[in-house]
């Protein structure tokens, strides 16, 4: 205490008792204010949420939002009625999206570098935290591809497993972030193929690593990334005189992709570009699942939906046939995942027909397809993350008799 002690006999209050009084007064005042704060905030939320209409869906979370639960006795006894109320209250909380962004900003401030399995990287890049390859399925696919290539030695067969963003741009990852060495995974994968030519795209992509090869907010590569990969593999694909000129159009500048939704981080909007080869070759696209026919692989309507990457073919399909006027007497079977959706735009000038199958949705057999369609070339194109987790490729490549015997 800085004050000198008062003699005990004086009737005036001592500094100590004054301090005590101040303490009590302050604490009491603080208590009243806190009660007002807590009740006030709860009340404001209550009024705002009662006064505003319930939302049907969330753009950010890409899902329908819970509505006022309907009462039922079965819901009451199994408890779902209660949890439905929990969902309703949290989904319709006033300013839900802002609260979530606010928390993410706060977490970033306190040093957090990942959110829901997504690394929050430098330059507003988001990258999925990679998981270890599924060894059993990887081996199964390797065996199936080798056996498939053995049965069809007459075909030009290539396999390209595209590295993911963190493999090309590890410098963008948070410092010390635990991460698989995807390059090593891909190298050991390459060594396991004998009959199939394994196309290495790592070097071609790394040569342009400062450019926008991958979307910031989505797990896909950009058309530019696909362009560099394609340019590096034309010889291996047996393409002489590749087209050198493209009309490049930016079809969207407001793309917030899956990683944005998954992490809840909405700090960047991507530009989606399409590369239209300058050739005289025309083509027609036929979707096997919907039987629809169009004259463009680009679906403009999809730019109004959330996922702008679906501008290519409108997303994934079990089988898509592209018939062209190229007149090269070559027919390509493209076995792929969604990384090929934006890659296909580079292939149209060089084949009379391109048959695209996605083994995750395609349940027929590739061998019979080869026989019927007069296929001359086969290209497997996957991104590493899906390839190392894939469990459906081997089924498509295994002949019907063999799979019946199993």
């Amino acid at each position: 205490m800085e004050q000198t002690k008062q003699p005990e006999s004086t009737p005036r209050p001592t500094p100590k008792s004054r301090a005590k009084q101040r303490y009590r007064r302050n604490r009491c005042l603080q208590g009243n204010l806190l009660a007002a704060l807590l009740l006030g905030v709860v009340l404001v939320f209550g009024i705002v949420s009662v006064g505003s209409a319930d939302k049907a869906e969330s753009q950010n979370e890409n899902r329908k939002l819970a509505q006022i639960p309907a009462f039922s006795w079965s819901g009451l006894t199994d408890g779902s009625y209660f949890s439905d109320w929990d969902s309703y209250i949290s989904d319709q909380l006033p300013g839900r999206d802002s609260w979530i962004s606010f928390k993410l900003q706060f977490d970033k401030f306190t040093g957090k570098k990942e959110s829901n399995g997504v690394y929050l990287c430098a330059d507003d890049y988001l990258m999925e935290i990679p998981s270890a390859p599924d060894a059993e399925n990887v081996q199964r696919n390797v065996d199936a591809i080798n056996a498939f290539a053995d049965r069809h030695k007459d075909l030009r067969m290539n396999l390209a497993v595209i590295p993911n963003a963190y493999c090309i741009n590890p410098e963008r990852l948070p410092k010390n972030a635990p991460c698989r060495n995807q390059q090593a995974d891909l190298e050991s994968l390459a060594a396991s193929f004998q009959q199939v030519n394994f196309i290495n795209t790592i070097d071609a992509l790394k040569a342009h690593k400062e450019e926008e090869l991958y979307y910031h907010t989505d797990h896909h590569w950009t058309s530019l990334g696909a362009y560099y990969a394609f340019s590096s593999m034309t010889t291996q694909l047996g393409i002489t005189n590749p087209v050198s000129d493209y009309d490049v159009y930016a079809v969207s500048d407001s793309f917030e992709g899956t990683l944005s939704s998954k992490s809840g981080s909405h700090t960047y909007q991507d530009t989606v570009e399409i590369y239209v080869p300058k050739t005289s070759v025309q083509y027609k696209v036929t979707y096997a699942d919907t039987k629809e026919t169009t004259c463009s692989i680009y679906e403009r309507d999809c730019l109004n939906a959330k996922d702008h990457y679906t501008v290519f073919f409108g997303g994934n399909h079990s089988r898509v046939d592209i018939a062209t006027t190229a007149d090269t007497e070559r027919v390509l079977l493209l076995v792929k995942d969604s990384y090929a959706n934006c890659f296909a735009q580079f292939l149209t000038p060089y084949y009379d027909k391109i048959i695209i199958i996605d083994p995750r949705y395609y349940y027929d057999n590739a061998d019979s397809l080869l026989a019927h369609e007069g296929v001359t070339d086969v290209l497997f194109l996957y991104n590493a993350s899906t390839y190392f987790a894939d469990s459906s490729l081997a089924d498509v490549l295994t002949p019907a008799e063999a799979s019946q015997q199993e």
Partner: protein
Amino acid sequence: MAFSNLTFVFAFLPISLLLYYIVPKKAKNAVLVLLGLVFFSWGRPEYLILLLCSILFSYFSGLAISNQQEHPVRAKLILISAVVFHLLILGFYKYYDFLVQNINQIFGTAFTTPKLPLPIGISFFTFSLLSYLFDVYRQKAPALKNPLDFAVFVTFFPKLVSGPIVKYEDMYAQIEERTVTKQSFGDGCRLFLIGLGKKVLLANTLGATFNTLYALPTDSLSGASAWLGAICYSLMLYFDFSGYSDMAIGLSKLFGFSFAQNFNYPYMSNSITDFWRRWHISLGAWFRDYVYIPLGGSRVKTWKIIRNLLIVWALTGIWHGANWTFVVWGMYYGLLLVMEKFVLKKVLDKVPNVLRHILTLLLVLIGWVFFFSDSLQIAITWLGRMFFVGPFLDATAKYAFGSCWLLLLVGIFASTPLGANIGSNLYRSKSKVPVAVCSILFFAAILLLSIAGMTNDTYSSFLYFQF
């Protein structure tokens, strides 16, 4: 339901306050019971019957015991049978599976168990019920005649599912007569907000770091990761549990109940004895009053004191969960306390306070490794990694530390009384600045960040990854 949940903060709490304060005094206890039952059955209604039966059973047992006060033997028989009944129910839900597993392992049998989910809060409300029976038997407090009053004692929602385990003798007077003042209401709000912040802002985030480290395969766990994981867990558990207790005690104040604190800065302890006077105080008091002292307490021969301590700590361990790790954790404390009391007392008295504090923290940290491990094997491996078996520093540890160091600092600060001391010194000071008004900014930040945190916990984007 948990307190750190949007439904609780924005619906259950305001509705319960509203109901409680608009009904006449006579109906207030009925409102509390109703709220307690809804709180208990929120999302898990299947055990409501079990809770109601347990309440009725104890209610009648309590009356029977107090009617037999002239016949101590009869009263004791009723007490024993009622206690056994409650312990059997607790045992069936919590330990039956564990018991059968061990029997199968020892005798090579293959008995199966129904694998029932644990009724929420059963360990806590069973101990409340037992406290009632013991206190009525010991005539510390009279049996309650009105079943509704008795139901308030058990189902009062702030303490129903996670404590504090308030002894009946401490609560009975408040069941019939209690007052809420402006000051106690404000205190309640303060405690609730502090607890909410501890739980949502510190425990949940430190827990996330711990979970990442715990999920690592043990062969890629470095020494630094093991230490960081154990430290994060220690702080997480403290903020989780003491945060919950703060919220419970705070909420109780809003309804006029006043309970003693359940945590008193346990990480400031300078001995294990001290630690257990500060950690989960209500549980320690329960075991002291209803097990340790009836066994003879400390007023018996040394070997009996040791026996009593070990019994109490084995029970404390197994109370925390049906796993050998909890038994080992409990016995570990039993042995430490015996050592402290009988072997090392004179040595420890000469050790400087700082060293004793560090030693205590280290021993507690080792205890938590047993506590969080799913098996003894994991615990041993974890401790092995901590004490320099294998590589020490790796990128994973650096990354984990990089993402939580600030929260660790805040956590360490918040587990000391420094913050509270600064606050009360400011209140005492003659500053011109309105201290109380400014402090509201701090609490408002806690509240808003907690709302953001609770909302973020419900974030679930629908992702159909079309790779």
